[in-house]
């Protein structure tokens, strides 16, 4: 090792408890990262400080910011971008791609079934309560046939790599998942800062996402429409993901609208333009279900379009994603995903689910009670991380308390093994060097009528705080450009 190499990786921890994406067990750089590692090692820490500033400037110049609200003021911030890209080789990627596609298709079948015959419940595979108790199950969707039979046109599946080196699915997001604009902007920023490095690899493009999204939207056009008019609807400039909404509309070449720009007449949707009303056929909506139509859902919604839902019900407009998909991506349904995949597709799941113990089942309850210290215990019906206990962080008294809570109402709890996120080399401003940090991966999968697409790349989110496992941007997370290599 040269001196510079030592200096920029000097503070890199190698913890055998976690799967390391860069180094193997012996501490050698993995083959796929070798070229990158050699190129980086030729630079000093001053060079990286400069490059880091350049990348940051690129984000500000592209206007990619999000708002952080403190007590009184709103601050424009950039989503921290990391200089060390994640590289995924073809073989590994093929499994991810097939796996997320399989899950998206299974979820689409599942949603169709639940809003029609509910066969999977009649067969006793999924319990009825699981669905009807979900606030995101919309009875308004019963019996509706969305154009092309598609509900989750856009799915974002979150993956992690556990200590055993295998990918596990953490969750599926099918309520208009965000983040894809960062994937594309990360690539732009990286190419500007480090073109000499990117050039050495043969990575798939990510900028074809918008074109594919537009094709997916056009594939689910209402009956009798030749050339569909597609739009993106946003809650407005104050929404934290407004940048993404405007970016997607711009790169697809379609209008970005707000609720007040649209109106419904005789169950058709129109957009106000300076040339008069223009019919709208497909809407990529970045507004939550409850706010879509004040006449059907929340009457206090000022973001939606009165009458939109009845136009949708008539089949005169397509909403992307469909309303009411939210019951299918919640925590409790997640635990049934292997069965859901087998039931609808007759296939074994390609990607692993984190194993789940249902405390409602006596033998699993026994295991959970004996192993609380090794498990994450979660209530089935709470969202947002409430009521979760992580076994290895509990005191003896706390463990006894958790046991008692579970025993009091076993049906309410599930338990999962404690998963560890893999680590990756990440540039840390304070130490001006690369350190190991935990990462996950959000993938983007599109389903249309006779068309499907998985973005070759994704959003690798990184927890910038040392030892932190939470990668969310609101919790101080950043992201990396993710390269999927061509064959």
């Amino acid at each position, binding site marked *: 090792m040269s001196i510079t190499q030592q200096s920029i990786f000097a503070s890199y921890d190698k913890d055998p408890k976690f799967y390391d994406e860069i180094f193997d067990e012996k501490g050698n750089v993995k083959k796929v990262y070798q070229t990158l590692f050699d190129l980086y090692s030729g630079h000093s820490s001053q060079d990286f400080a400069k490059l880091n500033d350049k990348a940051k400037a690129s984000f500000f110049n592209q206007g990619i910011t999000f708002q952080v609200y403190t007590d009184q003021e709103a601050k424009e911030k950039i989503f921290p971008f990391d200089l060390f890209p994640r590289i995924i080789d073809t073989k590994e990627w093929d499994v991810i791609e097939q796996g997320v596609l399989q899950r998206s298709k299974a979820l689409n079948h599942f949603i169709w079934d639940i809003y029609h015959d*509910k066969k999977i*419940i*009649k067969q*006793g595979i999924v319990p*009825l309560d699981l669905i*009807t108790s979900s606030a995101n199950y919309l*009875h*308004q969707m*019963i019996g509706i046939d969305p154009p092309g039979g598609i509900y989750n046109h856009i799915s974002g599946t979150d993956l992690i790599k556990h200590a055993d080196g295998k990918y596990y699915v953490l969750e599926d997001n099918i309520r208009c998942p965000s983040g894809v604009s960062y994937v594309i902007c990360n690539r732009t920023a990286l190419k500007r800062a480090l073109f000499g490095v990117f050039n050495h690899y043969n990575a798939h493009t990510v900028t074809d996402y918008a074109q594919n999204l537009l094709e997916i939207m056009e594939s689910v056009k209402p009956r009798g429409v030749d050339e569909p008019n597609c739009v993106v609807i946003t809650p407005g400039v104050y929404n934290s993901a407004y940048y993404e909404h405007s970016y997607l509309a711009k790169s697809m070449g379609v209008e970005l609208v707000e609720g007040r720009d649209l*109106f*419904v*007449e*005789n*169950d058709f949707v129109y957009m106000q333009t300076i040339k008069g009303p223009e019919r709208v056929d497909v809407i990529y909506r970045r507004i939550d279900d409850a706010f879509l139509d*004040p*006449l*059907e859902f929340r*009457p206090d919604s000022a973001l939606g379009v*009165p*009458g939109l*839902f*009845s136009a949708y*019900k*008539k089949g005169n407009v397509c909403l992307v994603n469909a309303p009411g998909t939210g019951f299918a991506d919640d925590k409790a349904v997640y635990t049934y995903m292997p069965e859901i995949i087998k039931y609808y597709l007759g296939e074994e799941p390609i990607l692993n689910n984190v194993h789940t113990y249902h405390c409602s089942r006596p033998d699993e309850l026994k295991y959970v009670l004996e192993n609380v210290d090794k498990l994450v215990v979660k209530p089935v019906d709470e969202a947002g991380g409430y009521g979760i206990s992580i076994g290895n962080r509990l005191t003896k008294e706390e463990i006894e308390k958790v046991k008692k809570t579970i025993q009091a109402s076993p049906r309410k709890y599930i338990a999962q093994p404690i998963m560890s996120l893999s680590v990756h080399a990440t540039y840390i401003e304070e130490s001006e060097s690369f350190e190991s940090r935990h990462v996950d991966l959000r993938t983007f999968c599109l389903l249309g009528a006779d068309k499907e697409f998985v973005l070759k790349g994704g959003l690798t989110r990184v927890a910038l705080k040392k030892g932190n496992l939470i990668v969310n941007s609101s919790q101080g997370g950043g992201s990396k450009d993710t390269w999927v290599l061509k064959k």
Partner: protein
Amino acid sequence: MEYTIKYKAVNTYEATVDEAFWQFLLRPEENKTQHVRISRFTNSLNTGIDISTNTFGFPICRVHPKKPFDAISFEANYIMSKEVINPFSALDSVANPEHYILIKSLNFKIDYERFLSTTPLTQLEKTQLPFQFSEERSIFDNLTELNEWVHKTFTFKTSVTDVNTTPVQFLEKGAGVCQDFTHLFLAIARLNNIPARYTSGYLHQGNGYQGDSQMHAWAECYIPEKGWLGFDPANNLIALENHIKVAHGQDYSDCAPIKGIIYSNSAANKTSYTVEVNARAESDPDVFSENQLFEPLPFKQQLAFQSQWQNQQYQQQQQLRQQLDADEDQAL
């Protein structure tokens, strides 16, 4: 029977309204016992009317004025026929264990899930059940007793509740209007595995009286082998030819007769509604009466009148039934 129905809503605003949307769910349902012969829906601004259907397939009218305004009124008129319903057809006092097995089966719960699930307006915990069903009695008898219990236990009183009042709040208050009686009835029926739906409509309370200026609400329950049957807990009645159904849904929010989205600088407004239901002879000319001047009877009195009449009918039926049963016993 023939009825004329007149619904009128008058809205005046303190500040000019720039944009507004309304949705009306007022037209009597077309079903086996009802048929609308003539209908008319007008508004004072002569704005075009959109016809659509709501999520349960009931026809709705939408109004979206193209110009700012300070006041708007709506009027709906219907001339319709309603079949006289034989009250005996609903009676079923024989407890059938198979019915209880059926309503507890998974397939039944799945097929009727929409009318078995609780909603925020019909939320009640199983442990809070204030009225118990008994499987010794028929489903019909249980529901009839529930109907009577709700009617007796609660006081009909306006202005103590609103459209967002929950059964739990109604239990605490002890008083409310027809939708509160109905929501509580629905909550209890559903917790006993009986599919129950909120029903909105008009109540004919005898000629010469104006309505209570509101639409009415009652519950429809699914009884195996019988189908959907209406129970009116506010009046302790079975819904027969005096109950003119408009729509059903999970709760009030699916059946609101008028929904409005108003974009204005001032929320201050005055709204008044009137509903009139009158029986007419089939030979009467098909015109909508404009000014009917009758002394209105206080609402409670009207209900008492109505309730008394139907109770008499019901008791007569029960007596007759008992007599028939007794005759049968003798024959055996």
